[in-house]
């Protein structure tokens, strides 16, 4: 007998270990005791933390400003804001655990989520318990998610605006290659890009999903570049993935156009690939020091000041979501004041009253029955952003609704093909 362990036992214990590793760790949550509580249920660690933690950072800046200004007035009372975060690590079981804690133990009035892979069980719990929640991904919505809304980001349908802008401004681009991780963020986004490219007359010569556990993105880019595309579309790949894919495109000699839903932490990428390579990179999320955000139709108080405060307090962590949860909080505060109450249902009804509401990028419509099964997505204009001289710049605001009016059949066709229509997701 050798050293006390057989091969069978090794494989058996390895499997047991894998199961142990697969279990999740409890994480602490924090928060001061205040009167009006907002729950934050999103990934604060892990691969998707780039779309959770920076959002919490921005929300904290908003809450501190509100509290410093004397709180929120409603029904003759003054309420101070307390944030109650819960790190769900982008895992559905942890999200459900967090949802129950936030509702049953903390008594929050609104729960903000990223949405996607972690959402289904938690949202079902919210619906059954009449809890108001928000998502950045209206692809969470169905006809049954009555109190789940997307009042800020309407991922992924705004991606059509980037493709439309590209087709108008660079008509010489004729082919595109798309890749994304295979999950609730990647699939509907691929469907959207497929529809947008088809509408723009751009041929998709490659479309593949890669595994979420991908360590090395070189083979993915090799495979894409083999089709000689004019455009590399990085879809809604996770923030770190977009960076590695971009770096690989540079290292393997790609010299065409790149488009992506996000380009978070892009200064770090520029350090690796240089300003010249990312010049013209098109995506959808502005830095909030952009002068175009000072236009009168923007419904976000002092965006440039918010960006400055963010950079001072959390340097180097600005991402697509840094302003989004704060933007939802701005809308929610306005609805609390409008309702004259902090009752969640009264606030929710005030937000949706009249079918139209102030969205961060201009007034917009509560929309979505055809695509999402319910009119709980606030849809209007969305900015197209481009890297110019190493800096994100808004090049144009474009209407999602106008695109939908012209090409909705394409969108529905590709959503159906990938099983992403609301009735397919329900099944």
């Amino acid at each position: 007998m050798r050293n006390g362990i057989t091969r069978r036992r090794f494989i058996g214990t390895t499997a047991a270990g894998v199961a142990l590793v697969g279990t999740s760790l409890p994480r602490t949550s924090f928060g001061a005791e205040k009167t009006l509580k907002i729950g934050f249920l999103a990934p604060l660690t892990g691969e998707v933390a780039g779309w959770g933690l920076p959002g919490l950072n921005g929300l904290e800046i908003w809450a501190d400003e509100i509290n410093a200004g004397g709180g929120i007035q409603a029904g003759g009372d003054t309420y101070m804001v307390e944030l109650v975060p819960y790190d769900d690590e982008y895992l559905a079981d942890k999200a459900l655990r967090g949802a129950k804690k936030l509702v049953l133990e903390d008594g929050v009035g609104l729960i903000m989520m990223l949405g996607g892979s972690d959402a289904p069980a938690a949202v079902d719990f919210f619906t059954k318990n009449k809890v108001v929640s928000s998502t950045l991904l209206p692809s969470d919505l169905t006809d049954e998610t009555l109190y789940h809304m997307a009042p800020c980001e309407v991922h992924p349908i705004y991606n059509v605006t980037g493709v439309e802008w590209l087709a108008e401004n660079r008509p010489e681009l004729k082919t595109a290659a798309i890749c994304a991780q295979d999950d609730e963020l990647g699939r509907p986004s691929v469907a959207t890009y497929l529809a947008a490219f088809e509408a723009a007359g751009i041929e998709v010569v490659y479309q593949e999903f890669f595994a979420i556990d991908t360590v090395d993105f070189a083979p993915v880019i090799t495979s894409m570049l083999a089709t000689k595309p004019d455009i590399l579309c990085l879809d809604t790949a996770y923030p770190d993935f977009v960076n590695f894919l971009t770096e690989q495109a540079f290292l393997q000699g790609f010299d065409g156009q790149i488009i992506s839903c996000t380009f978070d932490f892009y200064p770090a990428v520029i350090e690796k690939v240089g300003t010249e390579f990312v010049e013209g990179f098109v995506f959808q999320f502005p830095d909030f020091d952009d002068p175009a955000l000072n236009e009168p139709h923007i419904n976000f108080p002092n965006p440039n000041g918010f960006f400055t405060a963010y950079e001072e307090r959390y340097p180097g962590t600005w991402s697509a979501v840094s302003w989004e949860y704060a933007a939802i909080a701005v809308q929610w505060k306005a609805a609390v004041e409008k309702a004259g109450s902090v009752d969640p249902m009264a606030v929710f009804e005030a937000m949706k009253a009249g079918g139209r509401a102030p969205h961060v990028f201009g007034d917009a419509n509560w929309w979505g029955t055809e695509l999402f099964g319910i009119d709980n997505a606030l849809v209007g204009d969305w900015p197209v952003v481009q890297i110019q001289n190493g800096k994100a710049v808004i090049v144009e605001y474009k209407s999602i609704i106008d695109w939908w009016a012209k090409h909705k059949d394409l969108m529905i066709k590709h959503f159906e093909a990938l099983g992403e229509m609301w009735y397919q997701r329900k099944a």
Partner: protein
Amino acid sequence: MEVIAQTTVNALYASSYTALMAVGLALIFGVMGIINFAHGNLFMVGAYAVWWLYAVNGWPFFLAVAGAIMVVGAIGLLMERMLFRPMRDNPLGGLIMSVGVLFILEVLAVFFGLGLMKHVPPIYPGSVVIFGIPGATIPWQRLVVIGAAVLLLGTLWAFLRQTRLGWALRACAQDREAAALQGIPINKFALLAMGLGAALAGAAGGVMAPIVQVDPYIGHKMIVTAFIVIIVGGIGSLEGAVLAAILYAFFHTWVTTYIGGGIATTLGLVLMLVVLVVRPTGLLGTAERG
């Protein structure tokens, strides 16, 4: 032609880091009989060490990698002395200890505010054209990884084959009780094996820090592949680990490029099952006695 050349180079790089990880894991298992689930997180600590020393504090890259090797090697020594040694006759206990270390290292990274990915600039930016084929390139940083793997694994091979210490270590790996009867101090060699195995993981994390996600969870991705490789190679066989790392990395890379990344890991597991069916001891493993 350029796709074939590029894929071959991609696979060579993947072989290198996979072998570095798997050989360390196989060495620890061979000598100590411990299934070290924390091995992936030792890689993670190595990557963080290089981030902190090189990217934050401006140390020369290779000095930072040497620092990572020492830090992770020291963690390995502590693990052996404090956790694994008392569990030497209890493999399941050792496994649970290693899972505990895995979580502790992960939580420490999160606790210190290191949740978001850390960016580590490459020591040599850019890439070089290979085989004179314009569309096929290899980044300099990946050449560093390949060079480090060849150097470290070559040195380990020479140590194991050509020094008395190495012979004794191999004897421990082949039959610990018989080695002890020959007067080989098992405790010392278990310590040596754990230190070397951990140092290899730290080296892999260190040299790869500019290329991979430096975040608290990168170890999970690394450990799964390393386990597949040492099972395919023959559990406890260092040569088998290297051979299987090359085989698996080439297979995974070619499948990713020519079929799709979504199915590559699944087919890798199928490959492992096929090898186990055809050769239950793995490629270079030996049948158990008794």
